[in-house]
């Protein structure tokens, strides 16, 4: 992949989901109602735990699942009742779904063959895509003779050969080993930059989401928890769910109670100043906790995990787990009581009942774009 080849370039289409719902019967509602607009050429990662409806959402866009209600508009066209082939989408599947009886070239050219494209043009397009993906030497091989990474490339080649306006990815990297996953991530990002199709990428891997996405759509039980840039989602999670889902190790969430001036843990320790009253959930990332002699919050170390570049300390305060990430080289006396402080600007406050973020709770820069997805 030396010279940049722009002969495969899609006319990116906008995707609009308007009140899209999916339910199998009265009791089994997968997606209650989703309203979202994906901008043309945008790379959206749909992130969520298994069973949150993310794959269903993708299949409804593709036309492999019928919508129970609502409208899907792709490139200004209502497509929810159209066959997959009329929607201008292409898809990359988790298990590649290559045709085992066809060669690499035949696999990639199949959609063109079905569409009645001439043999010479098919060969030309296959050659272009194969060159782009580094598959030129493998065109006559069968999928069984390829490695996992090569198969994934063929699956991607098959998807982009028609220059679709929309590219859909259903957990395409989860069958690869860690090193290959990283390499493919880099390749996918570059490919997206070159092709420019509106891409929807479904995954449960937050690293894939953070690195690939223009915007991440976090789905929980069919609801959109947050739809924003990776940065905004990391720094200003809109709910406890998002806060716990993003970050490794995830954000600490502590049950606190406000008395009108400060927030206290169950054991009475004061953790922050806040004017509200009632139950709250206080979030702080493990790497944001300051360990210093002057800290007023006391805790004991229960366990330490040395990860080389940094160290994770497992502690407990007021019967609640608290993880602290220590940078490399900081010596900690594990036998002594730790003194901590929570920098006010790094704290996140969530409603005790709904788990939604409370904006500007501590006067810092708080989410401005939480509701931007509407």
């Amino acid at each position: 992949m030396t010279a940049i080849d722009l002969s495969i370039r899609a006319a990116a289409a906008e995707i609009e989901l308007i009140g899209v719902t999916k339910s199998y019967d009265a009791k089994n509602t997968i997606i209650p109602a989703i309203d979202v607009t994906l901008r043309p050429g945008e790379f959206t990662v749909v992130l969520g735990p298994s069973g949150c409806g993310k794959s269903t959402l993708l299949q409804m866009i593709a036309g492999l699942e019928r919508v129970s209600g609502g409208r899907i508009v792709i490139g200004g066209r209502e497509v929810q009742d159209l066959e997959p082939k009329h929607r201008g989408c292409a898809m990359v599947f988790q298990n590649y779904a290559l045709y085992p009886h066809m060669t690499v070239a035949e696999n990639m050219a199949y959609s063109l063959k079905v569409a009645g494209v001439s043999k010479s043009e098919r060969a030309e397009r296959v050659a272009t895509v194969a060159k782009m993906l580094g598959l030129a030497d493998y065109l006559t091989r069968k999928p069984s003779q390829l490695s996992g990474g090569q198969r994934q490339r063929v699956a991607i080649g098959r998807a982009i050969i028609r220059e679709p306006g929309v590219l859909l990815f259903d957990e395409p990297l989860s069958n690869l080993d860690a090193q290959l996953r990283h390499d493919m991530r880099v390749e996918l990002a570059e490919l997206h930059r070159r092709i420019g199709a509106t891409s929807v990428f479904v995954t449960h891997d937050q690293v894939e989401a953070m690195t690939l996405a223009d915007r991440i759509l976090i789905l929980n039980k069919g609801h959109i928890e947050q739809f924003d840039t990776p940065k905004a989602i990391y720094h200003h999670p809109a709910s406890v769910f998002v806060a716990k889902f993003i970050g490794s190790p995830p954000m600490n969430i502590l049950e606190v109670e406000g008395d009108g001036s400060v927030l206290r843990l169950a054991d009475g320790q004061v953790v922050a100043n806040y004017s509200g009253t009632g139950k709250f959930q206080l979030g702080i990332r493990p790497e944001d906790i300051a360990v210093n002699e002057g800290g007023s919050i006391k805790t004991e170390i229960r366990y330490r995990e040395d990860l080389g570049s940094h160290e994770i300390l497992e502690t407990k305060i007021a019967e609640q787990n608290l993880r602290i990430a220590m940078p490399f080289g900081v010596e900690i006396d594990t036998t002594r009581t730790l003194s901590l402080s929570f920098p006010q600007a790094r704290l996140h406050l969530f409603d005790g009942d709904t788990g939604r973020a409370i904006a500007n709770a501590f006067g810092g820069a708080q989410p401005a774009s939480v509701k931007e997805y509407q």
Partner: protein
Amino acid sequence: MSSESSLFSHRWLPALLLAPLMLLIVLFFYVPVFQAFYWSFFLEQPFGGGSEFVGLQNFQRVLSDPEFWGATGRTVIFMLTASSLAVIVPLMLAVAADRKIGMSYPARNILVWPKGIAGASIGVVFAFIFNPFVGLMAPLNSLFPGLWNPGIDGTDAFVTLVAAHVWSGIPFNFVILLAGLRSIPPTMYQAAAMDGAGPWRRIFDVQLPLIMPQLFLTFVLEFTESITSVFALIDTITGGGPGGSTTLLVYKIYVDGFRGFDLSGASTQTAILMVFVLLLAACQFFFLGRRINYER
């Protein structure tokens, strides 16, 4: 392999475990086969009492008999029509039952039931179903007298035989082919749908190529089985008639040997039939088997 051989470290234990099955195969397959080939070179007395080596005379006699060639011709026609239909009909049923259409679940179940019926019973049932006076065709016969009568018309009798054979072959072939179809990952169809292939196109471009191993298996078994297993159907439905029009080779061997007491002639025909079946299977493996893609 090493793990298997270490599981049975004794040299004689595998042989001992194999012995009962080997005994059965030798007693009921290899000995009769050898006997048939042996007898085909001798003139056997019908009620025992010595035999005479006659060289290739038996073969000369059989091969110059027009009835043998008639029976062979009918066998080949039956093999081509009945066994093809006995794969194609279950294939259509399996493709239909594989789709998520109404009744496909009960159909998958019901279609296997005929497996439990013996060939002779099927013959008796079909003799009734295709009876010109009380069977399915009776109303048509009353409209067009003489349209259907397998008791008089050889073609009608042959069609009855083919129908009975195809019907009795449905369960096994249906199960094999449906199992093949069910093992195709659903994402394969989704990928084909995304590539723009409609349901019919998917059948020919995805489903059929992917169940080639199963199709090959059913075809090989059907081709060889249709020649031999039809005996029970002939015996119960037509008795070889009318006028020998349904006397296939396997039935002729039985009639010659056990009714005509021509043991040598029957053995010779058996030997010829066996070589024919063997060559047929070999050809199938040679020309088709190597082109089958077993990869998934």
